[in-house]
């Protein structure tokens, strides 16, 4: 009898907690790219401090997951660095709009025992490494770019993403522009068939694997290399300069973006022409339905986006991202107005 009463009491507690907690807060769920993970989680945390009733729960599962979950409508917004394909957009149950939030860079990270110098890379060398054609660190192609560095004869261990990833998209998009063979063998998508290497989950997993595996090379968003103090090198851009990723070089890559921005904001800025440009830069997008079912959440999200495009941008440089060009922000504010919030 006592146990029965305890069980009923416990159930009542659960019910009360559930009801009480749901009454006040607006809870929004999103999933997607790990590339902007650090800045998104920073934004949502800061925004929650300003508007304590809006809780935006973001799960960095990878861009592929972001696209899939928003299409299934199991989350309120998606996030991706690889824009949705026309086919995917057609498969969604409503119109989905892309909204660029911030600019970032994908850098080649490496872990070579006894090598502390900064290694220079160019697109062809990177493509051949990831195709498996360059197998050892002291290969002449790498040595040519890095005269004077004592490269060991260790095997190169390629680390890529094990799941669908926008970071992968940016990386293979760039390599496909440089190397026709890479384009044919691997192609451009969020999940590709890698000719060689091991898989890590998320930008986090790739960073962790490279950090722990001697002789490895991988690709991650700049902040992950900085926060984990992993070596990364400059890459040769279209103008022939070797440029290291930074807020300035990424901003330079997007200089012409505002003028050439398509109405749906899906654009690639890898291998952009110009001086001081970092060639593996990209926008990252948040995916929203133009006519969402839950109007309260939609309004909260639109308000958040307006904050992110204005005040939120100031957090970008500290975390290694670059703020959006003003021209792009203006275009987005107009596009945000099209989201039906009532």
């Amino acid at each position, binding site marked *: 009898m006592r146990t029965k009463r305890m069980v009923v009491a416990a159930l009542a507690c659960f019910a009360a907690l559930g009801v009480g*907690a*749901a009454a006040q807060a607006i809870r929004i769920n999103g999933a997607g790219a790990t590339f902007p993970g650090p800045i998104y989680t*920073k934004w949502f945390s800061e925004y929650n401090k300003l508007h304590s009733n809006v809780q935006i*729960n973001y*799960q960095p599962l990878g861009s592929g997951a972001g696209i899939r979950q928003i299409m*299934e409508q*199991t989350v309120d917004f998606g996030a991706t660095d690889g824009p949705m394909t026309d086919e995917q957009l057609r498969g969604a149950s409503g119109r989905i709009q892309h909204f660029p939030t911030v600019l970032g860079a994908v850098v080649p990270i490496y872990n070579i025992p006894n090598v502390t110098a900064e290694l220079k890379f160019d697109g062809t060398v990177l493509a051949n490494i990831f195709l498996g054609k360059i197998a050892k660190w002291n290969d002449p192609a790498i040595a040519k770019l890095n005269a004077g560095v004592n490269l060991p004869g260790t095997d190169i261990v390629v680390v890529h993403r094990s799941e669908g990833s926008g970071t992968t998209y940016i990386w293979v998009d760039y390599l496909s522009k440089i190397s026709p063979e890479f384009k044919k063998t691997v192609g451009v998508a969020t999940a590709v068939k890698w000719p060689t290497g091991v898989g890590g*989950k998320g930008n986090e997993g790739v*960073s*962790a694997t490279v950090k722990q595996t001697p002789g490895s090379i991988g690709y991650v968003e700049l902040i992950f290399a900085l926060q984990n103090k992993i070596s990364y090198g400059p890459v040769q851009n279209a103008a022939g300069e070797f440029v290291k990723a930074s807020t300035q070089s990424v901003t330079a890559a997007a200089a012409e973006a505002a003028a050439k921005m398509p109405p749906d904001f899906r654009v690639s800025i890898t291998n952009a022409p110009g001086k001081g440009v970092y060639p593996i830069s990209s926008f990252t997008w948040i995916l929203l339905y133009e006519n969402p079912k839950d109007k309260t959440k939609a309004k909260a999200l639109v308000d958040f986006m307006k904050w992110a495009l204005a005040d939120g941008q100031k957090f970008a440089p500290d975390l290694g991202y670059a703020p959006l060009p003003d021209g792009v922000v203006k275009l987005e504010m107009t596009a945000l107005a099209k989201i039906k919030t009532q």
Partner: protein
Amino acid sequence: MNRTRFRKLISSLFVAFCAGAVVIALIPLAFILFFVVSQGVRALNVDFFTRLPQPVGEPGGGMGNAIVGTLIVSGLAAVMAVPIGVISGIYMSEYAGGRFASVTRFAADTLNGVPSIVIGLFAYGVAVMPLRHFSALAGGFALGVMMIPIIARTTEELLLLVPGTIREGALALGATRARAVFSVVLPAALPGIVTGIVLALARIAGETAPLLFTSLNNRFFSTSLTQPISTLTVQVYTYATSPYDDWHRQAWAGALVLVAIVLVCSLLARFATRRLERMHARA
């Protein structure tokens, strides 16, 4: 050497091998416990139990929401699994000779052996897709499905262990079958059944795979049943596969909490079983 000495030598070697096997098996256990305790204790502080995770890359914060989440999801699983498991167990023990009881037994054993990731797929199809929402309920459903066969089989066996004289005595006094079972037989087996439930809870509290795409994860403190919820196991997984040292330390602390839960439940179960055996021995 003569035949007998050779045989004795083989026998001693065999005994040594068996003892060695025990030692070999206990080495990883010692290793794991040592690492979990030594690494986990360092990150275990008040913050860990009360604070929320920080934004990606910022040190500090804790797993307060994950601990609460694990309790909630396990509780949901128990609420679902205990009635179905216990009553199926009663059916299987009362009608043990029947054909359908054998079918049920086979189903329970099969369910016990289904990999937890497959149960996660099932729960996604049944509890997430129709509602278009990741939720604590879906996570509880997945874990509940895993608990049902354990509780059912334990209940069945314990009920069968209750001496027939007890049930027959109740029936002889004119009780209906239902009355006999619920008022007399079940209470006799209750301590054992509760032990089985506690062990099943300990087992599912440590599951990760079925929660990955049912309850997902949540950065915030949430007790809502229809929202994604943070759980200790998923959080440890996320932190372990990250590159941040601070997160690694918190992952060890989370592992320590999980192992502590399991240890406490196992000890409780052993203690309860010992008392039960003593009770039955006296009776």
